[in-house]
Every structure is written in structure tokens, then in C-alpha cells.
């Protein structure tokens, strides 16, 4: 649905987006992940034509954004919940948007109902909490029943109820067959919602893969085995190409093999196994590892809390 090719954007001397290429497919939630300052918001602004790229091209459904007949029917985007005139009521805000794309008036009441804001429709939006502003922004994105929805950091500053609501909404939209493109710097948030990931750092593409692949790619993925015969299992695993090391308490940590493979090896060798656990690297760890080199504004925090992988580089993955 969205095709980005060789996208580059500079602000003065600073390169915000650097030769970025990726595609976003319908029917799933694509997470757009990267540290603050990685170029996520800039990329979204470029997709919407708010800023002009220095190089590269973007198409939505095969067309440039500004050539879309009715942009609201194609793309509903929420970049910043505060991008409204605070003096205008929620109803009039949505009405003035709907009118630009010749959408029927009744649609305004429908989306207000959907986001639970019918009761405050006539209230001016400057009095709204962040959560309410976010709901108003989402109502606006749904006015045109768009095939693509795009949210920039949608859960920022929301309470747990609001976060859950947005997660469910994104899943519903994707299940409807829509293209959902959502950015976040919160890896845990992506873990809960995204099917596919596009990871950026310093404006460059770091990874474009499924969530499962992204986690598996991390060197943190391992299998924990507890067995009364550790030495025999270590040898058997080494023979099959895995690496096993013994923990202080005698449990083995196996890398390079999947849980099923480890279980099969033990069975073939007649080794008893008391525990076999997948140690899933969290997305957080995988992300830190992959973007370690590309964090733009690194705080002077102790090195131990930033596990930078030795072999991963910013652009080579």
C-alpha cells in the first residue's frame, strides 16, 4: 500500500532520513520502531506531503499522496493529537475536515460515537485531556473509512485504558484488511501490537522483518535445559552445531538451536531432561542490540544498562 524508495530528507546540515526504502502491506499492523530522533516522524510527514523529500519517492496505492482523489478515503493519519485549533469544537473540527473530502455530515456523529466522545462533541477541544485529544485525532483518521491508517506514537501519555483501547483498535483495523502503520520508540508496545516491523536508526533502515524474525535475530535467543547429565548433553549439542554452556546451578544455556531440536537431541541420546524452556529475548533487548550504534542522543548512563551487541552494525543488518 505504501512504497517508500530511497527517501532522503535533510534539515539544514542534519540528515533526518537517509536513503530509506520499505513497503507496507495491508491486513497487518506494521510497527515503525526506532529511538527518538531516528526519523520516524519525519518519514510520516514525508508520506503525507507535509514536508518535501530531498530525494526518493513515496506512493500510496501506486499514487503520489497529493494526487489521491480523496486523501481521507485512502489515508487516515494522526501525527500529533494537538494539531487542532483549540477554539473549535470537536464536532466542527471533524466537520471541516469531512467537508474537504465531500464526506457526508452523518459521518462526523458516527466517528464521535465510535471514540466515545458524543457527549463532548460541542465542547472546544482546548479543554480536552491528552487522552481525549487522542480520541478526537483518531476519530478524524476514521472519517473517510481509509484503507491506510498511520499513527505516530499513539500511546504516548495515555492511561492504561487508553492504551488498551488503541491497541484493540489497531488490531481491529488490521483485521478489517486495512494497512496499519504505527510508530513507537517503546519496544514493549510493538511487541503487543505489531505483526511486522520496520526498524530505523539515524534515518537508516536497520531491519524490515516479521516480529518473530526480529526477536530470533537477536543473539539473546536461547534454550534453557535442566538435566542430570549435563556433560553428555553438551557433547551431543556440540555435535549438532549448537553451543551449550553450564550455568552456576548446573542448568545449560543452549544457543544456535531451537527448543524442539534440543529436545530431540536429548531423546535420541537417551538423556533425561527435567526442564526445557525457550528463553525468548525480549524485543527490548533485540532492539537495543540492533540500534546500539545508532542512538542519536545517548545519555551518559552506565554501560551495563545499554547492552550493545558487538557484532551488529547500524546499517549492515
Amino acid at each position, binding site marked *: 500500500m505504501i512504497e517508500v524508495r530511497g527517501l532522503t530528507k535533510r534539515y539544514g546540515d542534519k540528515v533526518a532520513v537517509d536513503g530509506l526504502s520499505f513497503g507496507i502491506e495491508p491486513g497487518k499492523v506494521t510497527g515503525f520502531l526506532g529511538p527518538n530522533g531516528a526519523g520516524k516522524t519525519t518519514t510520516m510527514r514525508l508520506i503525507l506531503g507535509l514536508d518535501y523529500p530531498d530525494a526518493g519517492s513515496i506512493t500510496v496505492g501506486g499514487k503520489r499522496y497529493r494526487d489521491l482523489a480523496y*486523501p481521507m478515503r485512502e489515508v487516515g493519519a494522526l501525527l500529533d493529537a494537538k494539531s487542532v485549533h483549540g477554539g*473549535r469544537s470537536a464536532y466542527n473540527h471533524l466537520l471541516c475536515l469531512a467537508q474537504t473530502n465531500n464526506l457526508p455530515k452523518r459521518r462526523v456523529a458516527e466517528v464521535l460515537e465510535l471514540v466515545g466522545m458524543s457527549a463532548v462533541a460541542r465542547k472546544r477541544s482546548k479543554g480536552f485531556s491528552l487522552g481525549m485529544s487522542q480520541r478526537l485525532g483518531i476519530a478524524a483518521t476514521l472519517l473517510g473509512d481509509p484503507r491506510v491508517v498511520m499513527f505516530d506514537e499513539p500511546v504516548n501519555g495515555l492511561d492504561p485504558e487508553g492504551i488498551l483501547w488503541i491497541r484493540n483498535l489497531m*488490531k481491529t483495523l488490521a483485521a478489517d484488511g486495512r494497512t496499519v502503520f504505527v510508530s513507537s520508540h517503546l519496544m514493549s508496545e510493538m511487541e503487543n501490537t505489531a505483526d511486522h516491523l520496520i526498524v530505523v536508526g539515524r534515518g537508516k533502515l536497520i531491519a524490515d522483518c516479521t516480529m518473530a524474525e526480529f526477536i530470533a535475530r537477536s543473539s539473546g535467543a536461547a534454550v534453557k535445559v535442566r538435566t542430570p547429565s549435563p556433560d553428555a548433553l553438551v557433547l551431543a549439542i556440540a555435535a549438532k552445531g549448537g553451543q551449550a554452556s553450564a550455568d552456576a546451578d548446573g542448568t545449560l544455556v543452549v544457543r544456535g538451536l531451537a527448543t524442539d531440536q534440543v529436545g530431540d537431541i536429548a531423546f535420541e541420546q537417551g538423556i533425561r531432561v527435567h526442564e526445557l524452556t525457550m528463553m525468548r529475548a525480549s524485543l527490548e533487548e533485540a532492539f537495543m542490540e540492533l540500534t546500539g550504534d545508532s542512538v542519536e542522543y545517548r545519555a551518559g548512563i552506565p554501560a551495563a544498562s545499554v547492552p550493545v551487541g558487538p557484532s551488529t552494525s547500524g546499517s549492515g543488518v
Partner: protein
Amino acid sequence: MTTSAASSGKLPLSTLPAASGRASLGGALRSEWTKIRSVRSTYWTLIALLVVSIGLDALISAASSSHLQGHPADKVGFDSTQVSLFAFAFLGQLILAVLGGMVITAEYSTGMIRTSLSVQPRRGTLYVAKALVFAGVALVISFFTSFVAFFLGQALLSSSGMNASLSGPGVLRAVVGTALVVTLVGMFAFGLGAIFRHTAATIATAIGMMFVVPIIINLLPDNWRIEVVRWLPSSALDRISATLPGANPHMFGPWGQFAVTAAWAVAALVAGIVLFRKRDA
């Protein structure tokens, strides 16, 4: 709230009618009309315009009337039409310039511009719609104010016997022309708003061009001043609201000065649309 609505599969929204054509000027005009009528600042500005213009012009006319009754000699060279339009011309233009500038700078100060351009990425369409809707509002309010100020002023001047009538020489041109030039000043500020994208800079520049530059020009040596003054956007109001002969011979005629101000407005509007289309939002 409606958590369940969003998580139960399909969204509870009705089906949209099939799309035909494309988002264009018609929708943009309706949208801009909704925008301008749905914020309080529009009403405050227009009420200020009415109260200041009509109220002050009535006071000036009433005071002039009693003065003329006591000093009949001052009736020579007294321009009843111009006097009844003075506050509207002098201060009304400033208030309308504030509205014209804010119609566009408020989009930037609130961040609304990002939403507006997302739903209508054809920027020229958005700009033209915004300019046309403001021009329409400005014209209607200017004509209304100009005629009310004129008729009220003449009613108050009637006791001095100096009241003008619309059929008098140059009177209709003065009333209509003043309304048109005040509208042009608003359009000029609209263009400045698109250039600066900042309310304070826009209003400061508009005030500078309409009030400060003429004062500075007045300080120039006479032979320069008389060459420059007719090219200023601020010179039209005094010329077009006058109905008596004896105007400054270095000025163009009423419609000539109108054309100068119109040229300034067009220049600002064109510079505004070029930058509006070219720059990152």
C-alpha cells in the same frame, strides 16, 4: 467507554457513498467557511470592527455637527462623507488586517495546518479557498460597516445642515471605495500571514506598512516624499473616502490609489501562495 466497540471486529460505521470526482475547491470552500465561523476570535474581531468603526464614527459626526453649529465658518472644506467614514477607514482596516492575518497564522500557531494539509494536500486549493472565504467575509462586513457608518453619521450631521446624500458627487464612490480598500488591506494581511506564518510578525508588518511607513515617508524631503507617497498601500483610504475637490495633486485619482493598494495585496497574496506551496509545512 467504547472499548468493546473497537475490539469486536468490524468498526460500527456506516458505508460511505461511492466516491466520484476528487477533493477540490468546492469542499475546501465549505470547510474554510466552517473553520471561520466556528471559532470565537472571528466574532470578537468582527464585533470589534463594528463597535469601533460605527461607534467612533458616530461620535465624530455628532461632535463635528455641534462644532459646525457654533463655528459656521468651518463648514468650508468640511467633507461630511469622509468624516463619517474616518474611524472605519483608519481603525477598521487595522482590525480587519488582524483577522486576515490570523485566519492563516492560527493554522500554524495551533498546528492545525498539519491536519488541514493531510486532508487536502493540494496546497493551492486550500490557500485559494481560505483566501476566498476570508475575502467574502471581509467584503460583507466592510460594506455593511461602511454604509451604516455613513448613514448614521449623516443623520447626526443633519442638525448642522452639512449632511451628504449618497447621490451627491463622489459620495457613493467614497462609501463603496472605502469598504473595498479596507477589504484589500485585510487581504494584504492574509498574504503577509502566509509569508510569515506567525501572528505577531504578520500584524506588526501590517501595522508598519499602513501606519508607520507613512509617518517615516513624511519625514523625507518634500521632493522625495511627493514621489513616494502615492505608491504606498496606505494612501488609498484618504483619497477614496474624499468627496471634495482639492486633493493632493501628487496622488493618483481615487481608483488609481485603489489600484496601488490592490497591487500590494496581490503581491502579498502571490508571494504567500508561492511560499505556501513550496515550503515544508
